[in-house]
């Protein structure tokens, strides 16, 4: 079992998939030099330029070509660099990749993995920081993944590449350097959440980088006598209703925390479902509905962070209202 970074874990999962299955190729800008975050480091040297494909700056073509590749027997892993740039390829993602199998009556499959690094990457401002996983959860035909640890990035990327349908795979830019143990045989089934910490009083569901904050908040909450169960959703679609609802049924309360904007974020789906199914108290904490600003003080407002989670959670548990901390105001 090796210790490696989140970026290395992805690289290693991809290398393994490419070794095991010659249909797997990687496509994107600057991949030959290892990718902008090093998440393709060494692959071009090992597998050659024919399979680690450096692409022109043309996101429509990158994703559109990947659809064509997938239809004709390859399993492309497509790099979008940051999720914001994938906005240049939404027709390809939704109208072409996601709808293909359905609208052609099941004649073809589009087994591609589109990697969309999400989240704030310190000081990168509005066009390099967005998280849009909720859009894809709303889109029939797509599987949506967002791992929070090196092991899961390894295990889920392998599962995503093995999936016969298009997968939108969200890595978090501030997780690239996080280290962890990665068992070589690790593989995570798509759609399985993981209970990271058991608790009695409240279920806290999160994914991607916010899981780290959630764990930290849970630990601090324990000191205040609140026992928090933390669930890493890992896959947003299909999401693991069974695990989440079973936990909620036990704790009787649900909080969802995510870095994406709270309004119409995926937390709403989970909270609404828990309220519908169990009638339990629910609350959410996502980012305020603002773009991510450049200056540190502005960027900080767009971050959830463990402190905000903790404050919101304790205030809520103590019946001090749904969210006690208030954002600074004029």
């Amino acid at each position, binding site marked *: 079992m090796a210790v490696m970074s989140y970026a290395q874990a992805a690289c290693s999962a991809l290398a393994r998939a490419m070794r095991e299955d010659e*249909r797997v*190729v990687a496509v994107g800008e600057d991949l030959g030099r290892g990718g902008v975050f090093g998440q393709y480091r060494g692959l071009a040297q090992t597998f050659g330029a*024919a*399979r680690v*494909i450096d*692409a*022109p700056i*043309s996101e*429509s*073509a990158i*994703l*559109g*070509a*990947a*659809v*064509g*590749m*997938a*239809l*004709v*027997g*390859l399993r*492309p892993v497509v790099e979008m660099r940051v999720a914001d740039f994938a906005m240049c390829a939404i*027709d*390809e993602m939704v*109208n*072409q990749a996601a709808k*293909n*199998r*359905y*609208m*052609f*009556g*099941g*004649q*073809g499959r589009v087994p591609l993995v589109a990697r969309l690094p999400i989240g704030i990457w310190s000081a990168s401002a509005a066009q390099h920081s967005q998280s849009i996983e909720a859009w894809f959860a709303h889109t*029939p*035909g*797509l*599987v949506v993944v967002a791992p929070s640890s090196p092991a899961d990035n390894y295990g889920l990327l392998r599962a995503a590449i093995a*999936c*016969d*349908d298009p997968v939108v795979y969200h890595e978090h830019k501030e997780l690239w350097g996080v280290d962890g143990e990665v068992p070589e045989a690790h593989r995570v089934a*798509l*759609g399985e959440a993981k209970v990271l910490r058991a608790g009695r009083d409240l279920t806290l569901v999160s994914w991607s980088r916010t899981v780290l904050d959630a764990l930290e908040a849970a630990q601090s909450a324990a000191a205040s006598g609140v026992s928090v169960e933390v669930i890493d959703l890992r896959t947003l*679609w*299909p999401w693991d*209703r069974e695990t989440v609802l079973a936990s909620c049924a036990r704790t009787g309360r649900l909080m969802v925390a995510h870095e994406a904007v709270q309004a119409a974020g995926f937390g709403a789906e989970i909270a609404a*479902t828990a309220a519908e199914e169990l009638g339990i108290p629910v609350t959410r904490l996502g980012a305020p509905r603002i773009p991510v600003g450049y200056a540190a003080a502005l960027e900080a407002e767009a971050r959830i962070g463990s402190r905000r989670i903790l404050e919101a959670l304790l205030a809520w548990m103590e019946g001090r209202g749904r969210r006690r901390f208030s954002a600074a105001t004029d």
Partner: protein
Amino acid sequence: MESDSSPADRIAPERLAALYRTMLRIRAFENAAEVASRGGVAAFGAAAAAGALVRGPLHLSTGQEAVPAGVCANLARSDYLTSTHRGHGHAIAKGAEPRAMMCELFGKSGGTNGGKGGSMHIADFSAGMLGANGVVAAGIPIAAGAAHAIRIRGGDAVVACFFGDGAVNRGPFLEGLNWARVFDLPVLFVCEDNRYSATTATESMTGGEGAAARARAIGVPAQQVDGNDVAAVDAAAARLLALVREGGGPQFLHALTYRFKGHVSVDPATYRDAAEVERALAQDPIERAGQRLAALGVDADRLRALREEAEAEIARALAAAAASPAPPAHAAYRDVQDCGAGQWR
């Protein structure tokens, strides 16, 4: 026209007869679909007429048959094709069965797409026809990718990528052609230039000299051809596809033709000049091929037989479509995705 006209001039009667037959089958299909579609478009909130057999937007390729017929005569079933919203001709010429296609237009379970797609998404993957597409130019990068897969996997298949003159103004035209050029991929791009983008004359919306000039600027060699002369299209496609198969990378065919009908079946196309339409109708590719066949000594009976056969085939397709059952409601939940498929969750 830069096309070298001699091979077209030398076309064998049997080959021309085969092209003629393909065009007749497409024409018969389009005519039948048009009739069956009357009242089938939901306009302004009114539901489609209950009796309409073909519902929804129907883009007919009537008058443009020479382009798919001429190009696809040079493709094997194992080659691939990407198409547009106006895809019936591409499908038939590539080898899809009119019967399954008509079932699809009727929204029946025997349809090529099991009733899920209709005219705008008609596809027959088993014939290498990777689907009509409701988004203008979207097939271009897909074709490049299909060709890229061929290059990587080996084999000598090629991809024919059809799109309209309006598509040359969309970004994926640039991105897809550039991709094919940069990676030297086996694609023949085919611009079916019928001079209109929906209700707008394409020329008024297109800077510069148009499709072929743009292709050349991206490094893709381009040839123009009279798209109503099926022998000329055949000859040009043969030449270009030979280059593509030799590994020289993408080629571009700019075929000049005309759309006999409105943009969709319900469009009266009043924005077109009557004289222009009349001139175009006089260039009917089927008429021209028929005359040429007659001149080459194919007798009138044979030509009539070809026409009757085509019409009979489509009549059978219509009957089959009428008889095919509608897909069951539960089919709506199939073929979404393996993992995460479901209904509301």
